[in-house]
């Protein structure tokens, strides 16, 4: 017993040191978000000489923050819902009705996991469809880029849902849509959590899509608002850090609250394959 103590202490110290490597930069944002423009430009870890809460008031006085959050939430929610339901439906057929058609479609979807989006032609397509600069357009874009992974996820999970379930339901004369939505979907709730997390993070973080596809700043997601804000106020790190804190804090709070689900969601998605 005693012998195994020392290595464990060493391991603990190593872990603690590595944690500092992660936490120090985050702490730096936090303390510097409360400094004035000249002090914050020194990027020190010390507490501010005077706490400049005004930085936060200033950032919040710009409509960009709240609007960015609302846009992101709206787009993410819509993308998550449609992606989940349509992916589940597709995966259901792909798994339950094997054959050439299903396989061809499945592999086509999987191409999307590898191939990067052709973004400039996407803009043109959106313009032709009159979807450029609309919520619908960017939502459809996010659904399309997230479907491959979600279908992959659902198809993997679907095999663990016993087929007898569908058969029993069929015996009772359930319609196929009703059967799918009432019997099958509820069984997929764990994957729904996973894919919701994965898709929401993807929408939240994606820069490339909105950057090219939304020129109307009123529809910008939070990431674009950060980009624009920082390039406007880059001479005042205090307010820049305040903005970054405002975006980071809710996400990190959510992460700490749900971290078990998030981590297992992310890994479940990856390891299943």
């Amino acid at each position, binding site marked *: 017993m005693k012998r195994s103590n020392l290595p464990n202490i060493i*391991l603990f110290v190593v872990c603690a040191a590595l944690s500092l490597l992660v936490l120090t930069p985050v702490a730096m*944002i936090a303390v510097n978000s409360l400094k004035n423009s000249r002090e914050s430009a020194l990027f020190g870890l010390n507490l501010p000489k005077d706490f400049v809460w005004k930085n936060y008031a200033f950032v919040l006085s710009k409509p960009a923050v709240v609007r960015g959050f609302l846009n992101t939430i709206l787009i993410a929610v819509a993308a998550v819902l449609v992606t989940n339901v349509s992916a589940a439906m597709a995966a259901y057929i792909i798994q339950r009705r094997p054959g050439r058609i299903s396989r061809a479609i499945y592999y086509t979807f999987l191409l999307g996991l590898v191939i990067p989006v052709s973004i400039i032609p996407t803009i043109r397509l959106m313009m032709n469809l009159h979807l450029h600069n609309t919520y619908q357009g960017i939502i459809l874009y996010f659904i399309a880029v997230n479907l491959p992974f979600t279908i992959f996820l659902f198809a993997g999970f679907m095999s663990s849902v016993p087929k007898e379930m569908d058969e029993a339901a069929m015996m009772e004369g359930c319609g196929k849509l009703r059967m799918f939505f009432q019997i099958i979907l509820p069984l997929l709730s764990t994957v729904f959590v996973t894919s919701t997390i994965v898709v929401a993070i993807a929408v939240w973080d994606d820069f490339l899509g909105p950057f090219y596809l939304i020129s109307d700043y009123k529809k910008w997601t939070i990431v674009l608002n950060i980009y624009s804000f920082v390039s406007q106020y880059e001479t005042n790190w205090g307010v820049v850090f305040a903005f970054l804190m405002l975006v980071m804090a809710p996400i990190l709070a959510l992460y700490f609250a749900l971290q078990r689900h998030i981590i297992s969601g992310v890994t479940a998605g990856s390891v299943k394959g």
Partner: protein
Amino acid sequence: MTNVQRQSYPYWFLLPAFAIFALMFLVPTGTGIFYSFTDWNINTEKINFVGLQNYRELFTDKKLVAALWHTLVYAFSVTLLRNAIGLGLALLLNTKVKLRGLFRTVFFLPYMISPIIIGYLFTAIYHPANGLLNGALRLVGLKFMAVDWLNDPRYALLSTIFVDVWRTAGFSMVIYLAGLQMIPTELFESASLDGARYPQTFRYVTFPLIAPSLTINLTLSLIGTMKVFVMILVLTNGGPGYATEVINTYVMTSFSLGLYGQGTAANMLLTLLIVLIGFPVLVLLRKREVAL
């Protein structure tokens, strides 16, 4: 399959997903192939077919060749480092170390922060005079190492690589950890009864069993990092000069100039690169996985 069954698994269930995917992904990819052979730009109403001209221009452009090279260096370095570190962290947390749940949460945390925020954060950390990194280096007497990380062409690409490793090592870690935790403890015990030492245990017990995690980590990482964009945009904008230009920043420049055909062609090169590297790696790893 009976008729009834066929009816209860109708193909039109595939339709919603496939329609959106085809419209928003396959169509742009397909038309993109076409546009990459045209002179499409912001001022032309009529698009003309120009054959291989865009590609010829790209390959005679030193900036693009540099961008291709940087993309490869970036992708392979980030992949290698983040997997090495991720695996190390996973092994560390697979011991009985105290508070390992908390450490796992902390190590994964950077992955939850948007890349754009991390980019801005590190422009501050790398600041030559006031940044934390150089501050720390000076503190421990390594003043000569306190260079201008993002603006010295010798170190700029390396510095962007480290940022991405910092961001994603925790992600690789949790995947390895999930793999490690699927290994039954009896396997370890029987190995140590055999008198196997740690390296051997790792080589013959641990490693083969985490091979699937390795496959997924390497392919995800390679494919993802070749698409790098916002991190470079925010940290260096491809500079200084063209020292950190990658394909996606090149595409953006072409787009800024209104050279849509050329930008699309550069995008196609990225697609080609990913397919050429991504698929063989995947196949190779899968084969080894089976062999182990």
